[in-house]
């Protein structure tokens, strides 16, 4: 069996741009860049949704107190820094002076307090602020947050782009979910939203750049908008998306398949970008339903699967074999437990199966229709057939699958991507398994380790805790990671200054003359 290992990823921890042609042209202002995104955003109220399609757009419009840098570390954005009290429970954030919202209103601490309070009530990922006790304005440009208990990941949470803790004007923050005017402080302002068609944003000429920033740096850093406007077109079908790029109507396609990327990469008119790793392919077990609750059965499955075969078919030309539950390059990356990853040992699998409660019954593998997820399910089905396990695949749309997958009956296996969690860091990778939320039955050790990680301020000790978590995952086969997958993005060669990241960032990007 071939096995590739990846040690470290260079400076950019989360993403790599593979062979983009260097921009020879000089940055220039003007133009309308059209980006084809694969789904319409459910809302442009950034706080209430964790959808990638919303992030693609909202992170151009809104900003947060802290944001993630290129290596996904939290750095100041609308705050100028933070002072943390000795007991680790009080955070004082000075707010940048001179920042103006798109409606001209100057940013002050009242806006920050109102936005944080709104998020605590209706935020799409309100758990990020669950440790907060109080939020108060301690000056016109200073906000003080006190925590109920020490939380080592508080700045990570505050800067999370998952459902961004966007800062709105206080007047908007007083409004219910999905009822706000789209007013932020970002380098682009909202222009129009045509449902089922597109969202248009325009350069905000009153933008106040972060004075400490020198270059593009993740979601933080220098955000220089060069384009007059950016249009995000919602194009759900892959064929028309690619055709629109070839016809010159679209400048960037957010996601294309491997074969298309290969074909377009051979043409000098296009630049192919490779965002790798972009996510994990995760295969979940339902611990509360039938034989997948039996650890011997889960270990048998873990031993049987050839993860490289699964990844190479599900994500041709854009995958990494890596058993760690954070991305390569993360300070928390460890090989602990990974000796059980991608073993493909049929004899060991059969021995474990014999010790398990499996009696030949048909098991249910649920998946949404995304090709890579269906391919993963199909490969698991075929590979398990070889050790005598019968699996039935049940494909349904995302709302149906996600509803079933969070109930304790009706499914044994479920596969989908984990993208934002490993980007955010170890606590976010651990959180979905706490209390049995994803596996439907709590694992006391996982819960204990998660609590310990949150309470531990010493990074060395936190690394050790995460290593224990990863070891626990493999020892108990709580869930399986197939590997890291990436995302091909293709742009017209006229689009310059683009580097792939978690969203198609359009600041620092310009269009060459046709």
């Amino acid at each position, binding site marked *: 069996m071939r096995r590739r290992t990846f040690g470290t990823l260079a400076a950019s921890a989360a993403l790599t741009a593979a062979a983009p042609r260097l921009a020879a042209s000089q940055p220039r202002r003007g133009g309308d860049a059209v980006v084809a995104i694969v789904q*319409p955003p*459910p*809302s442009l109220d950034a706080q*209430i*949704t*964790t*959808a*990638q399609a919303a992030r693609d757009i909202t992170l151009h419009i809104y900003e947060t107190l802290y944001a993630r840098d290129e290596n996904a570390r939290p750095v100041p954005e609308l705050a100028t820094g933070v002072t943390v009290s000795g007991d680790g429970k009080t955070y004082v954030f000075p707010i940048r002076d001179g920042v103006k919202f798109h409606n001209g209103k100057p940013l002050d601490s009242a806006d920050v307090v109102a936005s944080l309070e709104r998020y605590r009530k*209706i935020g*799409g*990922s*309100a*758990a990020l602020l669950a440790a907060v006790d109080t939020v108060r304005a301690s000056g016109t440009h200073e906000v003080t947050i006190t925590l109920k208990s020490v939380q080592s990941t508080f700045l990570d949470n505050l800067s999370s782009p*998952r*459902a961004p803790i966007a800062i709105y004007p206080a007047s908007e923050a007083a409004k*219910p*979910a*999905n*009822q706000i005017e789209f007013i932020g402080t970002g380098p682009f302002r909202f222009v129009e939203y*045509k*449902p*089922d*068609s597109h969202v248009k944003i325009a350069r905000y000429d009153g933008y106040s750049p972060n004075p400490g920033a020198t270059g593009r740096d993740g979601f933080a850093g220098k955000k220089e908008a060069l384009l007059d406007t950016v249009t995000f*077109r*919602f*194009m*759900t*079908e892959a*064929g*028309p998306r690619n*055709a*629109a790029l*070839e*016809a010159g*109507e679209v400048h960037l396609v957010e996601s294309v398949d491997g074969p298309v990327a290969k074909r377009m990469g051979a043409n000098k008119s296009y630049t192919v970008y490779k965002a790798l790793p972009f996510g994990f392919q995760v295969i979940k077990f339902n611990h509360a339903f039938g034989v997948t609750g039996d650890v011997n059965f889960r270990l048998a499955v873990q031993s049987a699967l050839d993860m490289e075969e699964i990844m190479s078919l599900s994500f041709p030309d854009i995958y990494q074999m890596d058993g760690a539950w954070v991305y390569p390059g993360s300070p928390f990356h460890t090989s602990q437990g990974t000796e059980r990853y991608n073993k493909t040992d049929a004899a060991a699998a059969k021995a474990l199966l014999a010790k398990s409660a499996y009696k030949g019954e048909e098991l249910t593998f649920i998946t949404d229709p995304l090709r890579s997820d269906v391919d993963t399910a199909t490969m698991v089905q075929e590979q398990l057939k070889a050790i005598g396990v019968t699996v039935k695949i049940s494909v*349904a*749309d*995302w*709302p*149906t*699958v*996600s*509803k*079933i*997958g*969070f109930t304790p009956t009706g499914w044994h296996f479920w596969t*989908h991507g*984990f993208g*934002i*969690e490993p980007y955010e860091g170890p606590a*976010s990778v651990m*959180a*979905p398994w706490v209390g049995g*939320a*994803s596996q439907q039955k709590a694992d006391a050790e996982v819960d204990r380790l998660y609590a310990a990680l949150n309470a531990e301020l010493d990074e060395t000790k936190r690394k050790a805790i995460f290593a224990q978590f990863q070891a626990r995952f493999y020892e108990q086969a709580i869930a399986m990671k197939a590997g890291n997958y990436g995302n091909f993005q293709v742009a017209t060669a006229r689009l310059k200054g683009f580097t792939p990241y978690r969203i198609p960032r359009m600041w620092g990007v310009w269009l060459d003359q046709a």
Partner: protein
Amino acid sequence: MAFYLAKRLGGMLLVLVLVSLLSFGIIWLVPGDPTSAFLDASATAEQATRLRHELGLDQPLWQQMVAWYGRLLHGDLGRSILLRRSVSVAILERLPVTLSLTALALAFAGLVGVAAGTLAATLQNRWPDQAIMAAALLGLSVPDFWLGLMLILLFAVQLGFVPTGGFVPFGESPSGWFRSIALPAATLALVQVGFIARMTRAAVLDVLHQDFIRTAAAKGLGRARVILCHALPNAAVPILTVVGIVAGAMLGGAVIVEQVFSIPGVGRLIVGAVLSRDYPVIQGGLLFLAAIYLTVNLAVDLLYAVADPRVRLE
């Protein structure tokens, strides 16, 4: 006539009530709710519950049903959960797009289909007849999404005559509107041309074997006049029926075509609503489409009397 109309309108009302009940029942039986559009797989049950409350989805089903019918009686289809506007407004915004698409497609399919079918009938069993029928069968067999993609590749990517997708309102640019709608309308029409052609051929052939056609030819009328002035009008009723069916089918086909060409019409609205479980839009959209379908059917039935004076609507 008045009695017939009242009876039909009563029947339509009954069908619409059934459709509304069915749409309400089915979507509430299907797993998932709009929170899945807002939250990803890592969201906890607590987050979903909070959002469900925020969106007003945690009320008992009967309460939501009573509220929906209450609003419906006032002509209010409710408010979209995702689109931040009323369902009626969302539909009315998109209606011109879908109507112009289907109207253009219907006009194209009707004209070409009737002409091809009539030509095939008049040249029965000769090579043009066989060629037209073979082409009709091919058109009927081709899936519209595949045909759409092929037309995009040829006319938009290779030849650059039209855009690959999107929609330009007529008021913004009439030529832009035509360019944006031409390919989708052709896709929608080409699939149906074959159906209309085959049915027209059969209807015209039936008439051509009637005595009055022989009489018309015997008194010295030209072939073209016999066909156009005597055969075709007498074959109008079955052709009208087919065109009515095709109009309904096109409303269904528009759902696919709007997806392929990224056209913001009613079909795309409903598909998006189904995928995101935007309940008010699904319910309102289905009711609206059913109402259009029933209206088209009623219009076709009323036109029978216009096309054939022997028909009495009682």
